[in-house]
C-alpha cells in the first residue's frame, strides 16, 4: 500500500514541464509577439512563481514578469494561465497539465513579456471613481475616532481585500469589448465606500460615477470576474446590489 503511494508521488515528481510563454517587448521595434517554450523539471509544491524564477535564473535572464509578495497579497503576478486570468504565485503546477501556456493579461498596457502596467489603469480608475472617503467635516485631531460596529467593519474589510491584480478585468467580456467599462474592481470599490459611514456621499452621488453603460449598467452579469477573482470577493452579489440601488436612483 505504502509502496503504491510512494510510486505515485515519484511519478509526479518526474514530470517535465513545458512552459510556453508569449513573449514580446514593446520597447523593441524589432520584437514580434511569439510563443517561446522552456522545459523544466517539476518540483514538489512548485508554483508558477517558482517555475518562472527558475527559468529566469537558469535559462533566460531577459524574461520579464512581476512579483513582489509571492503570497497572493500584492496582486502583481496576475497573468493568463492556459488562457484564464490568475495569480502565478497562487497557482500550483501540479494543478495544470504538462504543457502550460502563459501570456500577459490583456487589456492593460504591456511592459514586456508577462509584465503589465495594471497600476496605471487602477490609478485612473480610482481617480475616475473617486475611491476615497469624502468627508467635509472639519477634522478634529484631538477627538476620538467615531466607533463602528464590528460587523460593519468586517463587511468593509471583506471588500477591501481587493488587491487590484486586474484578473476581474481580464476575465470580463464587457471590458474586452468596451474599454471604458469600470469593471468589477471599480464597482467593488464603490460598494466598499458606500458601506463606509465615514463617506458622506449618497446614492445620487454614486450614480454620477457609475450610473451609465460604462458603469454598473454596462455589466452583463457574465460573472467572469466573480469566477476568476483570486481573493474570492463576492463580486456577483455586490454588483447586483449596486445595480438595484442605482436603478432606484434612475426612477427619481
Amino acid at each position, binding site marked *: 500500500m505504502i509502496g503504491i503511494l510512494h510510486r505515485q508521488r515519484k511519478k509526479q515528481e518526474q514530470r517535465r514541464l513545458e512552459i510556453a510563454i508569449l513573449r514580446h517587448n514593446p520597447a523593441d521595434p524589432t520584437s514580434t509577439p511569439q510563443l517561446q517554450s522552456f522545459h523544466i523539471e517539476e518540483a514538489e509544491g512548485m508554483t508558477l512563481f517558482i517555475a518562472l524564477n527558475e527559468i529566469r535564473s537558469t535559462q533566460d535572464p531577459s524574461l520579464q514578469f512581476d512579483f513582489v509578495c509571492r503570497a497572493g497579497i500584492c496582486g502583481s503576478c496576475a497573468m493568463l494561465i492556459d488562457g484564464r486570468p490568475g495569480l502565478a504565485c497562487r497557482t500550483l503546477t501540479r494543478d495544470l497539465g504538462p504543457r502550460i501556456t502563459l501570456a500577459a493579461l490583456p487589456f492593460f498596457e504591456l511592459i514586456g513579456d508577462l509584465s503589465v502596467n495594471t497600476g496605471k489603469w487602477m490609478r485612473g480608475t480610482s481617480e475616475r471613481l473617486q475611491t476615497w472617503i469624502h468627508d467635509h467635516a472639519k477634522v478634529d485631531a484631538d477627538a476620538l475616532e467615531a466607533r463602528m460596529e464590528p460587523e460593519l467593519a468586517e463587511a468593509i474589510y471583506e471588500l477591501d481585500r481587493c488587491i487590484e491584480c486586474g484578473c476581474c478585468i481580464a476575465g470580463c467580456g464587457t471590458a*474586452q469589448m468596451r474599454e471604458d467599462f469600470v469593471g468589477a474592481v471599480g464597482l467593488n470599490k464603490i460598494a466598499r465606500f458606500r458601506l463606509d459611514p465615514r463617506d458622506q456621499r449618497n446614492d445620487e452621488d454614486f450614480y454620477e460615477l457609475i*450610473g*451609465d453603460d460604462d458603469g454598473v449598467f454596462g455589466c452583463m452579469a457574465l460573472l467572469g470576474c466573480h469566477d476568476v477573482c483570486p481573493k474570492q470577493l463576492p463580486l*456577483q452579489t455586490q454588483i447586483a446590489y449596486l445595480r438595484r440601488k442605482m436603478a432606484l436612483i434612475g426612477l427619481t
Partner: protein
Amino acid sequence: MTALIDNKGSNELLAADASGQRVIHAPTAMPLRQSQRKSRWPARFDLLQSASGLFLALFLMAHMFFVSTILISNEAFYTVARFFEGAYFLGKPYPILVSAVVIVIMVIFIAHSWLAMRKFPAGYRQYRAFIDHKNHLRHNDTSLWWLQIWTGFALFFMATIHLYDMLTQPALIGPYESADRVWTGSMWPLYLLLLFAAELHASIGLYRLAIKWGWFTATTPNRSRRRLRWAKHSLSAFFITLGLVTLAVYVDLGRNHAAHAGERYVSPQHSTAPVRH
C-alpha cells in the same frame, strides 16, 4: 452635498490653449448641481430591458402551455382558442382581441430587441475581442451570452414572422386551422427553429436576470448560482420537450387533415358559435 467633479472636465478647464492662455468656460445658466446631473436614462433602459425580457419570457411559458393543450384533446385547444377571443365573456368570439394582444406583445418585443441590441458587439473589433476572450476563457456564463446573442438575433426574424401571422390571421387558431398552418402552410420548419431559439433565449435570459438583480439568493453566491443553473437547464429541457411533442402532434394532425386543408374545426359541443354559459 459633495461636489463631484469629473477629472477630465476639470483638466480641460485648466488646460492652456496654444497661446498659453487658460481656456475659461463660460458659466452656464443652470445651477452647477443640476447641469452636472447624470442622465437617468441608462438606469431606466436597464430596468426596461430586464422588465420587458421578464414579461416576454413569462408570456412564452404561458403561451406554450396554451398551445400544448392540443395534447389533451382537439376540444381542449379549441376551448382555449375561443377563450382568448372572449367567446365565454362576450357571447361570441372576437378574433380582434387576439390581434390586440399580438400588438401589445409586438411592441414589447420590439422594445426589448432595441434595448438588448445596445449590448451587441458594435463592429468587427468588439466582435473579434469577445470571441477571442470567450475562446480562451472557456467560461460557461461567458459562452452562454454568445448563445444569447445569436438566439436573440434569430428571434428578430423568426418571431416577427410568427407575430405577423397571428396579427393578420387571428381567427385561424384552432386544432385544424393551426395544424393546417403547421403542415400544409409549411410553417413547421420555422416553428421548430423558433422553439429552440425562443426557449433557450428565455431560460438563459431568466437565469441572467436572477444573477443581475440578485434574486433567489442562497447562503453563498456560488450555491445560488448552482441552483439557478439547475433551474435554467430544467426550464429549457421542459419547454423544448413540451414544444417538440406539441409540434409533432400538430404535424401529425396536419398531415391527416391535408386533404381537407382549409376546413375549419367544428366543435361537437358547440356546433355553432359558443354561447354564454
